């Protein structure tokens, strides 16, 4: 038996008790696994905490599952819906496309468009060859003939490329002409590389069209014994408008297309107008054919749309304003949105199942490392029953899903101030490279990843996972420290996810007296932000259990909630930045990047917002004067001395990783009280770039007063209130000393008060102060 590995995912991330859920599993080296449904109590295995705790739950699906190795089609392409085989061209033809190669020197063949079967060598295609040159090829039963352009294609430059093939003389003529302007390409006019090439030659054969070959844009049909049919020869870069003519177009006609004039009307087989079908609220996966047969093309793995096109003039920076200039579709051969494996098991959850974080635990062999997989999903109650709800920030989990920065990003060590620490699982995921990337990573061509999804295995969303760059759990494993604390102290609570917030808005939160956030609810769609804001405004009591929350926008399509979109831009923390003109999300038309520049800094919602980030060492909070005011002194009742949170599983303190601070100028409600603040952070902690105007010496922990965590409290209309902890590490301070510690004491005080209906403690101490001392 070779290496045994198990990977899996569910079709839904959030289900209600009584719903059905499907499990998709792929294994290596084993054909059966032991399945056991478990409720996850605590994840972090740090010796100072309770360790990993799960509770086995009876269900129909427990037992041995028959599983198999599944193939994953990675990479983006468009498949043309051509039931009548209109594109099985027999006579003369022309293929044309506006392209902006993203990685012409990849050393691998890339198909721009064509109806090509690479396994049998039948059909035709226009693409980029291994040498980085435009090539037209056609084949008849494995005999292949080709015509190659004599100038290499240059990186990130716009071209009009075409091939005209005369079926009678078998003469093929390539057309390659640069259409870059001062805005749309990497190089401007001062660096005039040779872009044009117009070779022509007679080929020795013409193509054979097999009926089953699909016409693809940015890929070509291939086949292997192991995988069956798949799409290979994937293209890197942008393709704008493209099409097919049923005759050999002449030079002047192609020149006219390159000049942006109207397309010739006669003999059109297909003409894909990539800029059609845009709405202010997003762009779908369908690329519309304006030709006579309506041969629309459908995107696979979500080619990125709404990108600047060949004719972008820089005047507008959003596809909503001038869609015709934003016809660019970007393709990446390593992008993945949905593994599309067949379901290994389908399970109808019992109606009586308690709300919580569940996982289907699959084990093979000794059941450790890659031989154990927790396929995590979140179960809401059939009907809300508890007074407390905990919202798992699944949007942020998705943003970080399968993050590989420790392997690829040289800045990562500097940002975290530590040497990264990777595990067997990280290395295997990196080696495979087939389960997609996170929105923090870059594609192999250096372009940032904008889509993430939960329809793929996500090892870093498992309960024991430690983040390589931190050696501390983050995301789910960190958030479980909070729910474990609730569990330990016997609080009845329901759980919700970001997906529920996005889908149902305020309705999801309204039934609860008190709502707790996760440790890092960083990514929020507009609907999620609205839900939290409305909840607080209408009298809800909200505990913001972390930091770096409500910072960044993200988008979901209503019909595909598993995929999340992120665009990053110049005004936020980022590991990459979207190009200009490409900073608006294709899923919903919202501006990508942080919420602050849109007038929604986190301070406005919860009183505090991101002040700094770092790692390596966490500090503690010391009480601030406001904690002695009777309006809020009940929060620290029972805390001995002034120190709060001097222990923790995350770097030994409650104030660490990311810190939030109080800032009037960013909209902290004027009556907000600071209960406690941290200080003395090391210089690895740097001030949040968003609140820095200049870079200068001294934007670090020991120099800048903004590098701190503020624990704040304010009351809201209708007996509402917000308590904010101010640090990501706060949640991980709770499990220390068997859940009995001063950080937990503070949280218990707040929670006990928040679940009580009616007035909040300290409500009466509101007169103006007349001090004698």
């Amino acid at each position, binding site marked *: 038996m070779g290496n045994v590995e198990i990977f899996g995912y569910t079709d839904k991330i959030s289900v209600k008790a009584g719903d059905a859920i499907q499990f998709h599993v792929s294994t290596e080296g084993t054909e059966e696994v032991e399945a056991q449904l478990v409720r996850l109590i605590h994840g972090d*295995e*740090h*010796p100072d905490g309770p360790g990993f705790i799960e509770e086995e739950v009876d269900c129909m699906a427990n037992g041995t599952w028959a599983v198999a190795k599944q193939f994953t089609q990675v990479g983006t392409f468009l498949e043309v819906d051509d039931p009548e085989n209109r594109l099985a061209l027999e006579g003369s033809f022309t293929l044309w496309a506006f392209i902006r190669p993203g990685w012409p020197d990849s050393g691998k063949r890339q198909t721009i468009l064509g109806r090509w079967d690479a396994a049998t060598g039948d059909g035709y295609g226009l693409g980029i060859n291994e040498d980085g040159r435009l090539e037209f090829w056609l084949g008849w039963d494995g005999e292949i*003939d080709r*015509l190659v*352009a*004599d*100038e*290499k294609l240059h990186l990130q430059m716009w071209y009009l490329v075409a091939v005209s093939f005369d079926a009678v003389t078998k003469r093929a003529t390539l057309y390659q002409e640069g259409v870059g302007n001062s805005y749309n390409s990497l190089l401007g006019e001062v*660096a*005039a*590389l*040779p872009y*044009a*090439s*117009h*070779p*022509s*030659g*007679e080929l*020795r054969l013409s193509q054979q069209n097999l009926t089953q070959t699909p016409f693809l844009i940015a890929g070509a049909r291939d086949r292997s014994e192991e995988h069956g049919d798949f799409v290979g020869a994937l293209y890197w870069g942008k393709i704008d408008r493209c099409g097919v003519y049923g005759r050999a177009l002449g030079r002047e006609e192609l020149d006219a297309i390159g000049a942006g004039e109207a397309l010739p009307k006669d003999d059109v087989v297909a003409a894909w107008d990539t800029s059609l079908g845009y709405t202010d609220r997003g762009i779908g996966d369908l690329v519309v054919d304006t030709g006579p047969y309506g041969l629309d093309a459908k995107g696979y793995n979500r080619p990125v749309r709404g990108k600047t096109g060949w004719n972008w003039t820089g005047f507008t920076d959003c596809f909503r304003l001038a869609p015709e200039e934003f016809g660019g579709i970007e393709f990446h051969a390593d992008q993945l949105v949905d593994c599309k494996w067949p379901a290994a098991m389908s399970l109808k959850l019992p109606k009586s199942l308690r709300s919580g974080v569940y996982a289907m635990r699959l084990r093979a062999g000794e059941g450790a490392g890659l031989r154990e997989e927790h396929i995590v999903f979140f179960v809401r109650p059939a009907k809300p029953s508890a007074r407390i709800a905990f919202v798992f920030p699944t949007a942020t989990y998705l943003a970080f899903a399968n993050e590989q920065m*420790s*392997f*690829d*990003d*040289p*800045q990562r*060590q*500097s940002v975290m*101030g*530590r*040497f*990264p*620490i*990777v*595990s*067997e699982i990280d*290395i295997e995921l990196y*080696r495979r*490279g087939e389960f997609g990337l996170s929105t923090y990573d870059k594609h*192999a061509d250096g372009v940032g990843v904008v889509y993430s999804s939960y329809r793929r295995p996500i090892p870093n969303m498992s309960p*024991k996972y*430690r983040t*390589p760059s931190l*050696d501390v759990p983050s995301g789910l494993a960190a958030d479980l420290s909070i729910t474990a604390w609730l569990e330990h102290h016997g609080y009845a609570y329901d759980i919700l996810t970001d997906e529920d917030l996005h889908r149902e808005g305020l309705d999801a939160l309204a039934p609860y007296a008190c709502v707790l956030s996760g440790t890092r609810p960083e990514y929020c769609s507009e609907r999620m932000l609205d839900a939290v804001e409305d909840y607080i405004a209408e009298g809800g009591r909200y505990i913001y259990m972390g930091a770096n929350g409500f910072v960044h926008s993200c988008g979901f399509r209503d019909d595909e909630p598993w995929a999340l979109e992120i665009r990053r831009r110049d005004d936020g923390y980022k590991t990459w930045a979207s190009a200009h003109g490409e900073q608006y999300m294709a899923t919903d038309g919202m501006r990508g990047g942080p919420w602050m520049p849109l007038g929604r800094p986190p301070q406005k919602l919860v009183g505090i917002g991101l002040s700094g980030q770092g*790692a*390596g*060492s966490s*500090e503690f909070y*010391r009480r601030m004067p406001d904690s002695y005011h009777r309006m809020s002194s009940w929060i620290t009742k029972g805390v001995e001395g002034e*120190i709060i949170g*001097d222990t923790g599983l995350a*770097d030994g303190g409650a104030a660490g990783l990311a810190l939030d601070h109080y800032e009037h100028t960013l909209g902290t409600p004027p009556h907000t009280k600071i209960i406690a603040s941290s*200080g*003395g952070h*090391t*210089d*690895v902690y740097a001030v949040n770039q968003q609140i820095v105007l200049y870079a200068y010496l001294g934007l670090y*922990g*020991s120099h800048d007063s903004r590098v701190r965590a503020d624990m704040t409290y304010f009351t809201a209309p209708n007996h509402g209130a917000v308590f904010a902890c101010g640090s990501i590490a706060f949640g991980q301070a709770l499990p220390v000393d068997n859940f009995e510690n001063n950080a937990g004491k503070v949280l218990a005080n707040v929670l006990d008060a928040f679940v009580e209906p009616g007035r909040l403690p300290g409500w009466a101490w509101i007169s103006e102060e007349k001090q004698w001392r």
Partner: protein
Amino acid sequence: MSETNEVKWRNPLAVWPGGKEIEELPTNAWHSHQDVWRARRESKTKLYPVGRLRYWYKFAGHGGRLWSRMRYWPTRRRVLDVRGEYNRKTLQREKTVADRRPIYWLLCLAALAIAPLLAPSNMQYTLLVAGATFGIYAAINLCWNLVIGIGGIFSLATYSIVGTSAFITAYLSIQYGFSWWMLAPIGAVVGLLFGAVIAFPATRLDGFYYALLTLGLNELCRVYFTTSSEFGGSNGGLYGADSYIPDSWSSDHQLLLGYYACFGLMLAALFLHRFVGGRRIGRLLRMAPEKREAFAEATGVDFRRARVWIFLIYAAALGFIGGFYVTNFGGVSFSIFSFDAVLLGLAMLVIGGIGRPEGAVAGTLIVVFLDKVMLGLGPLRLVLVGLIALLVVLYLRNGLFGIKTQFRAWRDKKKSEHRSTRAEKGGEMLPEEATETDDKGIVYARRFDKMTRDHLKTLVSPEIIEEHRVTLNGQHSDALERLLIYFRTREQVEKYGILNVVPFKNYRIVAFSGHKGVPPRLVEDRIYPSYDAACHGVFLRRVQDLLES
């Protein structure tokens, strides 16, 4: 290294309550990182100007206009593999003929075609006879090259095949009156049969043993034909076979016809060589040279089959040449089996360079010229041939036509020798090195890196190493912080990280690849009991790397 430990660093965070922070630690005396920059005013080695003058014309081509690309009929190969490149210094378009050999071939063949017209009249006879001999021998050597060069089989049976075919066809012509046009095809059949006999040992025997075997075969043929009475054992050969050269023609015309016929034979052999070498069988055989058969077989190359095939083609072609030989000279002598014929033939191949058609032809030309034209030199001719062959074997790696690559390799060797004496390891780039880097940002990065390291090396001291151990994730002194910032900001290739083998128990140091999909490698066997210990291990390694650089 710092010599004083009087200096203390005070932790700015020690004022914060809680007692977590260390208040002060011994550290290095401070000195500015600018010292290194200010002190370095010139390079340690002399910097020479670089740049090469363009003194020849290079066709710029035309990107905008249509460019028809012709092919060699009926193949799919382009006429002259012309590539468009751009000049990395001017960004201007340039056309490069990737393979200029067809041009040289054409020029040389044209020269051979008109050579008889240019020959001085007093030398006419000698030159034309030599030219005809050259044509035949060139054809033989081209065929020989198929097995030695492409097939990688050291066969010395070439002349025995030619000879056997020649004797049998001559015998048939003399005894049974076969006319001249039948002799070459019959020769091909004889050659084929001969080839079939010797092909099979070639798939089994190793190079040296096979050479011995075929040499023995050659000797066997010589003994058989010289002693057999049917084949004219008494008069030194068989003569009087039918010739294609009409007796009625003048001797000048006869000579000319002979010359061109042999020239034609050579062209045919060239075509065969190109045809076999350029097709699937040639590619298969080149994948399975001697000593690498097992590898080729493992990758699915059926080299035995290909070797048998190439042998049959080789033998049939040589048989054909044997038949032609008889019609050209009207007979054949026993000297064709002699050992010196084999040696002379080998000399031709070796001088030109084994494996290339141009080598076979040029080598033949040189040897035949010495042997048949420089008759005035007497026996010294053969000494000269031997001397040339010896020099070629001694000093050239692959004959005359290997000189270009050999020269380049030698120049590269000299280049790296010179660089290693002048350039510092990990130091700034020399002007010569900078010409090889497209990203000039790297040139500056190398300078910055060098300066930074020169400063950082002065910061490494036992105090700083101890400070790292005790304040691992805390606030650091200026010296330690500088070292850590440098270590953290390096590129990803070979950058150290830690492998979590068993959480909280078992850690090891790895190095990242910096290439997507390539997993990190373990750098040492040592196992650390905690993350902190492993971090300090990484730090020590990085310090060591810094000091060694």
